């Protein structure tokens, strides 16, 4: 008799818990693929296709499916590959495919030589992030602040009037360098007023005489 009661109690428990879990699985179902979203958030969204996929989202999906390596994204650089390695628990691989670690490409922006543009709209169609404005038989131009530097517009241009140029540093984009005092050659060391700018360390030297 006791054994039957025990079985009944266990069965009841299993049913109750099973029902609760089943309900929770439906009620609290998470929409979308969470891990893909996280991977995609790390990718730089240049949509350049240098990874061999048709954009950042397809690449993220391929990484999650285990079909792609995490070091195929040159715009993200080693920094991005490291973040992906951390997130996915995979081994970090440098983007350059071995060799010297820091292989981050400098940021570029597309510039249309406007006098030569024939207004064919091919670059507008190629731009994945809608950063080129213009219309048929009208001059096109790149909105530089929106350009991700993916270079996808360069190839379709029939008159080759698109250049990729590096983005010049301005007061708004300038930032302090890592505070390692660079080793200067003997002749460079003389032009002090011209290179003290980045490295003003008067706080500690002020103390020595105070």
């Amino acid at each position, binding site marked *: 008799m006791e054994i039957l009661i025990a079985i009944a109690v266990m069965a009841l428990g299993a049913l109750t818990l099973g029902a609760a879990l089943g309900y929770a699985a439906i009620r609290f179902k998470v929409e979308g693929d969470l891990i893909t979203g996280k991977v*995609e958030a790390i*990718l*730089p*969204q*240049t*949509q350049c296709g240098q990874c061999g996929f048709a*954009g*950042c989202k397809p690449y993220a999906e391929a990484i999650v499916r285990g079909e792609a390596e995490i070091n195929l994204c040159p715009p993200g650089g080693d920094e991005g590959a490291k973040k992906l390695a951390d997130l996915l628990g995979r081994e970090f691989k440098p983007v350059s495919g071995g060799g010297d670690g820091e292989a981050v490409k400098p940021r570029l922006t597309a510039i249309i030589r406007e006098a030569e543009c024939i207004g064919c709209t091919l670059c507008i*169609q190629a731009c*994945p*992030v*809608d*950063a080129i404005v213009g219309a048929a038989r009208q001059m096109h131009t790149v909105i530089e602040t*929106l350009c*991700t530097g993916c270079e996808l517009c360069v190839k379709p241009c029939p008159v080759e009037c698109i250049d990729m140029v590096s983005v010049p*540093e*301005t*007061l708004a*984009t*300038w*930032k*302090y*360098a*890592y*505070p390692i005092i660079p080793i200067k050659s003997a002749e460079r060391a003389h032009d*002090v*007023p*011209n*290179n*003290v*700018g*980045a*490295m*003003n*360390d*008067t*706080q*500690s*030297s*002020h*103390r*020595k*005489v*105070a």
Partner: protein
Amino acid sequence: MLQKLFKFKGGIKPAHHKAESQGAPIAIAPLPGRLVIPLSQSAGEAAQPVVAVGDRVLKGQFIGRAEGWLSSAVHASTSGTVVAVEPRLMPHPSGLATLSVVIEPDGEDRWLPLQAPDYKNMSPKAVLQYLQDAGVVGMGGAGFPSHAKMQNSTVLEDLVINGAECEPYITCDDRLMRERAGEIVAGSRVIRDLLQVKRVLIGIEDNKPEAIAAMREAVEAMGETTFSVVVVPTLYPAGGIKQLIRVLTGKEIPVDKRSTDLGIQCFNVATALSVWRALNLGEPVVNRIVTLTGNVEQAGNWEVLIGTPMNELLALARPKADTDGIIMGGPMMGISVPAFDVPVIKASNCLIARSPALFPPPPPEMPCIRCGACARVCPQELQPFELYWWSRARQFDKAQAYNLASCIECGCCAYVCPANIPLVQYFRFSKGEIRAAAKEQKMADSAKARFEFKQFRAEREKAEKAEKLARAAAAQAAKLAAERDTPPGGESDTAVYAADAKQAVIAAAVERARLQRAETDSRDA
């Protein structure tokens, strides 16, 4: 009025070096040979030039229009001719050039006819607009546009007027308070009325007794009962906004809040004076008081036109032969300017002539010995050694978790560090990287949104086209069916007509298919 004072944690007491320059009254600096006026002198967007090469300008004339709300106008500091509008070096640690207006003075120093605004009858918004157009920015060194600080979105209680001037060497605010206390108090009153605060606290460090006396006298002469001049103990960095507010009111500003969230706004004494000049005389900001000190024969304070080259200005103080550079600001928070001839800007409160004897090259950085001295002096109650480790290792998320953003870069930690670690440099590096990463993330998010919208658009266009084709085909079929049902004339006629229609439909379909193929081909290519 006796007021209870509070204390902030930490702080240091460096040698003052104020005696050298505080004695002599403010003198007017002579007109320089050239004026180079940078168009980005304040925080926020750079002003846009509104003059061209060859234009004649008068003193106080608009030369740079404010671009957006967080920006400030720029004016000609003297009368003369615009000889260039081009990128020039400016006093900034980057050593980068920014768009500047170069003026050759005509020697007359003739003002534009000034007209004081009727600010008492203007709406607060119009007054702020006026201040923006007058180029009024924080004169204490940060250069934040003042009008942007006067937009009272919250109810304010206290106005703090900062006359602490805690950094060594600098005495320009001290002299200003001694000589122009009346104007400072009048300006503070205008700000008080704009912000509708109940109390005005003027905080001055106790090492400036003459300034305290002059300010007290001015307040009494105005008969203002809401004003009080409060003497605060001399302790660097008592002039930091957060520290001064702590000392005067006992309120500590939380990490994620601003002083206005606690009902307090703060302005420098020189800013109060600029506000007064702008509103009472209609005079835009074209000059400021600059302390010339350091490795010089005759230190002092000068009233200087904005845009004066620093080497011409420093010559007035007769720098000694071994001067090898200029520091703009104080020795704790100032910057070494990238060249001798960079111009004085609105934020240049002090120029210190550098010499190897006065500021020897920093001793080599040694490993951190975990002594904790930096944490004991940090006025923001941070743990600089933790921030240093994370910054050094480029672990910026960790540095942020340790509240790197709260660091005011006062340099107390680097000052006491026995291992000579340039801590502030590490923090500035980290902050720059964090800011850049945040900006990049924002750009990536917007690029993603645009990419997704483009894809959505392509899908929609495809769907619309398919629908249109389907509709056209259906219409054609219906038409054909209708024609078959009701023949319009003779039997033979109908047959010919139907055959024609059939041909036309086929031709149209072939044409459509061809077009579609061409389109997909060009897309694939």
